[in-house]
C-alpha cells in the first residue's frame, strides 16, 4: 500500500507540473496545446544530456532544461500563435511527434541522446543530494517524491501570484475575447507568447523530474499519450483553476495505478493495463456529463460561457 501511495504521488507531482503548464495555456489563455509532450521531452533530454554528457551540475541543467523548453515554446508560437486556435492545436500535436522523432533518429542529435537506446547516468547528482542533506533514511523514491512536491508547491505559489496579478488578468481577458483586448490596447500576441513560453518552461521542469524517476529515458517514453494524460488531468481537476491540475493529477494517478491491486488470478497484468485505460475513459465520460467544469472549475463561469 505504501508503495502504491508513493508511486502515485511521484507520478502525480510530475504530472501536476505538466498540467499546470497546460492550465496556463488552455485554462488561462485559451491556447489549445495538444503537444505539451514536446516541452516535457525537451526538458527531460536537456537535463539528461547536460548532466551525463557535459557534466553540468544538476541545478544548472535544470534551469537550462526550463529555458530550452521555453525557447522551443517561443519558436513554436512564433508562426503558430497568430493562427486560429484549432490550427495551433494541430501544429502543437505535430511538434510533439517531431520532437520524439528527432530525438530518436536525427543524426547529430542521436550522438548526444543515444537515439532509440536512450540515455542514462544523469541521476547520481540528484540522489546524491540525499547524503548531502542527511536524508539517508529516505528511499530514493521517497526523496524524489518529497522534492517533486516541494517544487509543485513552489510552482503553485508562483503561478498563483502571477495569475492573480494584472498580468494574469490580461491572459484571462485574451481567453475571453482577443479582439476586445486588442481594442483595450493590449499587445495580444506578446502576451500569448509569454504565456506559451512560461507554460512550456513548467512542462520542461516536469520533464526533468520525469527523467529522474527513470534510470534511463528513451524517445518512446514521450508518446502523444503524455499530452493526452495532461488534458485528462485538466478535465478532471478543472481548467482555469489554480489547484485543479494538482488535484486532477493525484486523482488521475490514483485511479491509473489502482489496477495493481487486482489479483493476478483474476486478470493478467497486461489485461489490467488495458483495464486502466478503460477506467480513465469512463472517468472522462462521467466528468463531462456530470461536472464539465472539472472538480475545482467554476460552474458559474462555465454556464456564462455556454450562454453565448
Amino acid at each position, binding site marked *: 500500500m505504501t508503495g502504491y501511495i508513493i508511486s502515485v504521488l511521484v507520478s502525480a507531482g510530475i504530472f501536476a507540473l505538466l498540467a499546470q503548464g497546460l492550465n496556463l495555456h488552455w485554462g488561462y489563455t485559451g491556447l489549445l496545446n495538444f503537444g505539451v509532450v514536446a516541452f516535457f521531452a525537451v526538458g527531460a533530454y536537456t537535463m539528461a544530456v547536460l548532466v551525463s554528457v557535459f557534466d553540468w551540475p544538476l541545478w544548472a541543467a535544470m534551469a537550462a532544461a526550463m529555458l530550452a523548453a521555453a525557447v522551443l515554446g517561443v519558436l513554436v508560437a512564433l508562426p503558430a500563435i497568430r493562427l486560429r486556435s484549432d490550427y495551433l492545436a494541430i501544429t502543437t500535436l505535430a511538434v510533439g511527434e517531431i520532437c520524439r522523432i528527432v530525438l530518436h533518429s536525427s543524426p547529430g542529435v542521436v550522438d548526444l541522446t543515444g537515439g532509440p537506446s536512450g540515455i542514462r547516468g544523469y541521476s547520481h547528482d540528484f540522489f546524491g543530494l540525499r547524503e548531502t542533506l542527511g536524508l539517508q533514511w529516505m528511499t530514493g523514491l521517497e526523496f524524489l517524491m518529497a522534492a517533486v512536491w516541494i517544487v509543485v508547491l513552489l510552482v503553485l505559489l508562483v503561478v498563483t501570484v502571477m495569475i492573480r496579478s494584472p498580468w494574469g*488578468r490580461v491572459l484571462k481577458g485574451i481567453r475571453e475575447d482577443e479582439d476586445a483586448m486588442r481594442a*483595450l*490596447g493590449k499587445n495580444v500576441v506578446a502576451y500569448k507568447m509569454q504565456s506559451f513560453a512560461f507554460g512550456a518552461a513548467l512542462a520542461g521542469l516536469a520533464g526533468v523530474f520525469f527523467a529522474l524517476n527513470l534510470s534511463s529515458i528513451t524517445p518512446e517514453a514521450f508518446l502523444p499519450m503524455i499530452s493526452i494524460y495532461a488534458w485528462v488531468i485538466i478535465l478532471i481537476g478543472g481548467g482555469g483553476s489554480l489547484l485543479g491540475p494538482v488535484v486532477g493529477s493525484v486523482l488521475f494517478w490514483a485511479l491509473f495505478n489502482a489496477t495493481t491491486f487486482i489479483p493476478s488470478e483474476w486478470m493478467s497484468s497486461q489485461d489490467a493495463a488495458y483495464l486502466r485505460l478503460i477506467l480513465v475513459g469512463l472517468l472522462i465520460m462521467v466528468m463531462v456529463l456530470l461536472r464539465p467544469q472539472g472538480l475545482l472549475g467554476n460552474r458559474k463561469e462555465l454556464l456564462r460561457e455556454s450562454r453565448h
Partner: protein
Amino acid sequence: MKADTELATDPDAGATAAAEAEAFLTADDVVMTFGGLRAVDGASFDAPLGRITALIGPNGAGKTSLFNVISGFYRPRSGVVRVNGVDRTGKPPHVMCRHGVARTFQLTKALARMTVLDNMRVAAPRQVGEIMFGAMLAPWRVRAQERANTTRADELLERFGLTRLRDSYAGELSGGQRKLLEMARALMLRPRMLLLDEPLAGVNPTLGVQLLDHVQALRDEGMGFVLVEHDMDAVMRVCDAVTVMANGRTIARGTPAEVQADPVVIEAYLGAEDD
C-alpha cells in the same frame, strides 16, 4: 461630480478653439479591399475633439470597414489615417489606443467569465503589473496602481449606474448593460477620441437615451466621438456633424440639417433601398 473632472482628457490636449477646428482624427482617401471587393473606395473623413461626428450610410456603404481601418483592426490598401496630425496608418489597435483613439464593438465584447470590476480594471493603461513577473518584482507599485485603477473603475461604474453589478460576472449582464459596460471600460483608457460602433443596436430606448446622455456629457468635457449608427432620429438629435458614406465613398458631410436636405444623400438612401 468628481468623476467628471477625472474624465478630462490629457493635459496637453489644448482644447482651444483652434485645436478643435483642426480635426484630431482624419482619414484621407482610404481604400480597403477584400479580395475583389472594394469595401472602402477612397473615403475621407475627419473628427475633431469636443464634437460628436456621425458616420452614416446605407447597409454595405463601408462604414464598419472604415471604422476598422481607423481603429487599426484593418490595414488599408492605400490612404492615410492621422491622429493629432501624425500619420498612424496601419498601426495595430494597441498602438492606436496609446495615441488616444479607443473603440467599442457593434456586438458587445464583454469578457464574460470575468467580473464587471475586472472588465474595467483590465482596461487601465500602462500597468506595471501587466509586465510578466511585474507583480513579483515591484509588488508595492503594482498594489498602488491597482488601488488607483479600482478607484477609477468604481467612479466610472457609478457614473454609468453599474455599481450594483460590480462583482457579477460580465456574462450575467443584459445586452444594454453590456453596452454601458463596454463604454465605461473604454473610458478607462482615457481616450481623447472614442469610436462607437452602433451603440444603440439592441439597446432598449430608455437605456439608449441614457447612453447618448453620457456621450453628450463627455463631449462637453472635451472628448471627441465618432458614431456609426442606424437610428437616424438619434443621429440627428445628438450629433454635431455627419459624414455620409455610400458605395465605399464619402458622399456628403455637414451639419445634420444640411445633410438631411442634401439631394445626393436622399438619393443614396432611396437608391439603396431599391436593391
